[in-house]
């Protein structure tokens, strides 16, 4: 793969100031092929970053590249090669999904016949059947999100920007959309940059996660590193947690105390040892065990820990 050679997008000291707010603050980040998640609370600068990457908004300072193209000078070439699904509603209610997606394909430079074929294909892939001939004014939120996704994919881009694609969907629709995003990244071979303010859902579909807050980079790493390095088990006992903590620490375990909970780090090389040590310690001290659970390191933890 050429993932490291030509990153899907890269920024260097990217800053965007609006009269009242600083949306991006000296952001330097890069992402390779596959599915990349862009996580941040509302107003963290996700949509601004996408607009800059599309070449639609000039940054205050710094530079950005998409597929090796400079956003400042090659906006048209970038927009020819990428797809964009905005966060907001963008569908004219009196058009049918088919007409609309065909039209958008033509706007990307596809000839009319090819546009028709691609629109039919793409709408099938996103899971829109007979409804696609009806005016979009009567569509449910789930169907509207599918049409928005279809118009972003219809011209077979190399990279798609999906801005909050799960917004407003019920749990089932959310799962379907996430599965679809995973398929786009793997089966379709189209790289994806997907934003969300819900951290948990991105864990399931992304290869790489970028966390920004207040326009600053908090963390950028492969999803495996997020989850693997931070495996812990939570132990709660009725009384005597101090004794247990001392005993485990003496035995060479890394223990952190969170209220009445003991968070015991599990070393990735020998996970069984820690579990055994906890079991033995609880038995030997005669404590009553209330809780013993596996804590997968979650992306949320990034926000809890102070940035190193």
């Amino acid at each position, binding site marked *: 793969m050429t993932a490291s050679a030509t990153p899907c997008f890269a920024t260097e000291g990217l800053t965007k100031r609006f009269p009242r707010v600083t949306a991006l603050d000296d952001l330097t980040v890069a992402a390779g092929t596959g599915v990349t998640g862009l996580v941040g609370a509302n107003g963290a600068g996700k949509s601004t970053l996408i607009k800059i990457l599309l070449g*639609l908004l000039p940054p205050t300072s710094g530079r950005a590249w998409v597929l090796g193209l400079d956003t400042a000078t090659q906006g048209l*070439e970038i927009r020819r090669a990428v797809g964009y699904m905005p966060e907001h509603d963008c569908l004219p*209610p009196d058009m049918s999904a088919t007409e609309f997606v065909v039209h*958008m394909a*033509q706007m*990307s*430079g596809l000839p*009319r016949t090819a546009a028709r074929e691609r629109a039919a294909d793409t709408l099938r892939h996103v899971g829109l059947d007979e409804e696609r001939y009806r005016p979009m004014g009567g569509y449910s939120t789930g169907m509207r999100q599918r049409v928005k996704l279809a118009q972003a994919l219809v011209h077979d881009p190399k990279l798609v920007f999906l801005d909050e694609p799960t917004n407003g969907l019920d749990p089932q629709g959310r799962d379907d959309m996430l599965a679809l995003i995973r398929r786009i990244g793997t*089966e379709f071979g189209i790289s994806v940059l997907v934003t969300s303010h819900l951290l948990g859902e991105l864990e399931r579909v992304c290869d790489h996660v970028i966390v920004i807050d207040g326009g600053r980079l908090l963390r950028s790493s492969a999803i495996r590193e997020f989850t693997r390095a931070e495996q812990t088990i939570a132990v709660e006992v009725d009384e005597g947690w101090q004794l247990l903590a001392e005993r485990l620490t003496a035995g060479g375990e890394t223990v952190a105390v969170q209220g009445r909970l003991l968070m015991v780090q599990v070393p990735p090389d020998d996970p069984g040892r820690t579990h055994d040590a906890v079991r033995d310690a609880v038995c030997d001290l005669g404590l009553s065990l209330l809780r013993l659970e596996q804590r997968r390191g979650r992306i949320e933890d990034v926000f809890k820990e102070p940035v190193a």
Partner: protein
Amino acid sequence: MTTEPTAVIHDIGYRHYDGVRLGRGRAVLALGVQSLRGVFGLGRTVRAKIMPLLLAAIMLMPTVVSIGVMALAKQYMLPYPNYAVLMQAVIAIFLAAQSPYLVAPDLRFRVLPLYLSRPLTVTDYVLAKLAALAVALFGLLAVPLTIEYVGELLVDLPGPPHTADYLGALGGAVLYAVLLSSVGIALASFTPRRGLGVASVIAFYMFTAAVSGIFAGVLTASGHDDLAGWALLINPFFLVDYAQSALFGTAPVNIETNPPGVASVLILLAVVALAVTGVLLRYRKAAS
């Protein structure tokens, strides 16, 4: 004979597109053509077709009458260059009804960001919309004029055919199309609501027509005939009529007043430039 399966369902999965990708010009053309079709209600609901087709039909009526008069009375009754001024109310209603359709829904339903996420610029978008409306307005005028001219040739009036008048009127139709489309789009693009757009365009026409009529009337009554022609320029239809007269040598409708001549052409150009600049600025702002 063995029964082997004759049909197999293949899941062909996702297929990449490796066909032609046309340039930006073709995308702009596609947008313009789609907009032009939409102006006449083509590819839209039946309800959307009624108004433009009805108005287009009304535009043909004087043609029919004129051909009839030419055939029966052998008289050149309705000069081509006066056609637009005669039908100005119909043209104004057409402009008011259709220019908001071109721009308001894209603003209201926020389709504009999608256009701009494709290899199109704000200027491309605005030019495609202006061109679509201008072509529609030109057609609205040129079709009846051409039918009338063909009728004149077939009827074979005494004397030479009024070819210069016809060509001058076609030139005038271009001027009407450019001026009215830029003013119509400029007014309609300031509101995302179609109803308000219709109201503002029709109000603009009624206001300018009334003001120019009142001023011209007062000036003529008080003996300032030389100034009355300038007052008439406030009405966009008389403005184009004078410009048409200055450029193509046709007789203006208001012969009794002093025609302002070249000045009318300059004013026309200034109004078009102002309107187009306004639209571009408005869209630059909407895009960011």
